[in-house]
């Protein structure tokens, strides 16, 4: 006989026969999950826990912004392929369709002994399981001369929204033959191909509107993601426009001056017209406040994304130190589902299945010239370990590249539905 899972859970709960559900803090009837951060990690985990437990778990999502602007595809906005409105998504359906308590506030404190979270507005939330997915913060002064007060003159545009709009307007305002500089981040950082996709999109814009303009990249890394694909694309589409200065030529010895709009690379001062500084990164502040970070990131167990320091705290996405997965929206979304399954199992005794992780990152180099890189991963005792992967090849046909770009459009629609519908 086929028993529907939902019917089974309800019937079992009514009969009190569920496998020892954990008693919730302060004797609250329904177990409580608090999720901090409403990006691919947080929105997905909240949605999956709520949707699959049919009201048996009380889920609160804390996220300060009412509209989440995706970093993914924000480079396409910079290139003029997307409108900013297309990148913004609200949390309405999470509340109305899934009964998630969406609280627009900042979490400012976590007390892991009393299992409570304090919000900037002053309220306290009790939890049985706490899930942190706050993304990244920048390490102040990792680029000499740059701090958050300089971000208006020299935007990072690495948290999407007003910063992304600012960067685009600065690129559009560049004088004929002007210079766009990017200070690329050191590893590890979110979205390994992100800075290079951005350069491609800036080049696409300049080629159309300001073809004598130049792009300089100061890069502290010897190698970067999809390097041969990007370099091939830059040569084909934007010959002579892009100059990347790696560490062998001083790309790691950089300072900026937001007042004079200059970038100094290994002692050589260049006056620039737009300057995109992407500083070094670390886990969002709340992870450090909660005391679950070790250095810049929060170490987790690969089987369920639980903190190595506290089994009742899970960390997802960019903030986590998990092993081989890149910091991407796809990864955060994948980790969220493993975590949701484990948390439901722990709280209401639902079946727990083995962890499965996957990632694919698409990048656009020029109109209809899409490339991708992806891998599958498994949980080992030590970390999330890469099993197998693939990457687009140089010299692929235009048809295949176009199909790859179309696939990325499908992915974007898919992951948005998977986070917010």
């Amino acid at each position, binding site marked *: 006989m*086929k028993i*529907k*899972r939902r019917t089974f859970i309800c019937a079992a709960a009514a009969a009190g026969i569920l496998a020892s559900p954990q008693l919730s803090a302060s004797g609250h009837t329904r177990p409580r999950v608090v999720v901090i951060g409403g990006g691919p990690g947080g929105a997905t985990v909240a949605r*999956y826990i709520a949707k*699959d437990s049919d009201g048996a778990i009380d889920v609160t999502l804390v996220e300060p912004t009412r509209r989440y602007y995706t970093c993914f595809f924000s480079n396409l906005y910079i290139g003029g392929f997307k409108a900013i409105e297309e990148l913004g998504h609200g949390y309405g359906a999470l509340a109305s369709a899934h009964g998630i308590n969406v609280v627009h506030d900042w979490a400012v404190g976590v007390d892991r002994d009393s299992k409570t979270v304090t919000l900037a507005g002053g309220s306290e939330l009790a939890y049985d399981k706490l899930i942190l997915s706050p993304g990244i913060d920048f390490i102040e002064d990792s680029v000499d001369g740059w701090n958050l007060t300089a971000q208006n003159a020299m935007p990072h545009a690495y948290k999407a929204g007003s910063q992304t709009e600012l960067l685009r307007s600065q690129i559009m305002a560049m004088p004929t033959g002007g210079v766009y500089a990017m200070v690329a981040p050191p590893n590890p950082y979110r979205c390994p191909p992100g800075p290079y996709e951005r350069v491609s999109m800036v080049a696409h814009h300049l080629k159309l509107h300001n073809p004598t303009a130049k792009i300089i990249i100061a890069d502290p890394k010897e190698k970067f993601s999809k390097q041969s694909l990007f370099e091939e694309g830059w040569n084909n589409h934007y010959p002579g426009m892009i100059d990347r200065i790696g560490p062998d030529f001083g790309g790691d010895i950089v300072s900026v001056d937001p007042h004079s709009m200059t970038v100094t690379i290994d002692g050589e001062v260049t006056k620039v017209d737009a300057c995109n500084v992407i500083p070094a990164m670390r886990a969002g502040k709340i992870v450090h406040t909660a005391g679950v970070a070790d250095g810049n990131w929060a170490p987790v167990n690969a089987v369920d994304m639980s903190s190595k320091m506290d089994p009742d705290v899970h960390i997802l996405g960019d903030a986590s130190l998990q092993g081989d997965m890149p910091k991407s929206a*796809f990864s955060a*979304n*994948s980790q969220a*589902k493993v975590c949701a*399954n484990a948390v439901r199992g722990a709280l209401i005794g639902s*079946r727990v*299945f083995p962890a*499965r992780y*996957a990632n*694919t990152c698409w990048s656009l180099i020029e109109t209809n010239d899409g490339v*991708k890189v*992806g*891998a*599958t991963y*498994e949980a080992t005792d030590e970390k999330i370990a890469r*099993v*197998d*992967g*693939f990457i687009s090849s140089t010299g692929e*046909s235009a*048809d*295949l590249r*176009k*199909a790859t770009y*179309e*696939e*990325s*459009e*499908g*992915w*974007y*629609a*898919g*992951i948005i*539905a*998977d986070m917010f*519908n």
Partner: protein
Amino acid sequence: MRPTTANLFEHIPIRVQRQLQLLLLVTIVTFSPRVMLSDETGEAHRGQQVYMQCHECHEIGNGATNGIGPHLNQLFGRVAGGIDGFHYSPSFISAGAEGLVWNVDSIAAYLEDPQSYIEGTRMNYPGLRDKEQRDELIAFLRLFSDDSDDLMVLDSYTNEPGFSLDPDVLEIEGDREYGEYLSSLCTTCHQLAGEDAGIPAIINWPERAFVAAMHAYKNKTRTNPVMQIIAERLSDEEIAALAAYFADPQD
């Protein structure tokens, strides 16, 4: 001369081409000589070759049943979305409600550009732009409808994969709940609502078709690398579990 795979599929985008790979290996029932007799210009016969693109998802002929797409017997005169028991997209249902009936003209317009003719259709096919091929295909399809002068009765064109998939594998009963968990690997890209924004819909497929497709990725008959590495990690039981879930995710 028989068309080679290369020239047959030349103008079709890679996204579709890779889905046709499987099809090249399917066992195809040899075509009855009756078609030749009643098909003086050979149009319907050439249409049969064009039909190979449809064949992975649509069955036609004697005993044909619904597959990934509805069967195509008695297509002419059928109201769009009109087969009971087949899960159509909402757009198809409303097209039917608004009075769309399949005839030579409507089929031609739909085939030419499915997404613009019925926006939101789940048919993952970019369109047949070549008019001649469209006419041939329509001539072929018409043989299987009552209004044809010479109604075809052929053995069914089914879509069993031709690579050696152990028949037992097709019989495995999937653990639906496990499938629901595993489906979350797929829903990062494939929408549960069945929308296709560049990545095909995979809901409401017959379980056997789903299993066959996943095994075709696993043994690399199908070429999309994202799907190959996902499928590679799935056991036969896990593929069956996914097929059981996606066959009817709303259940």
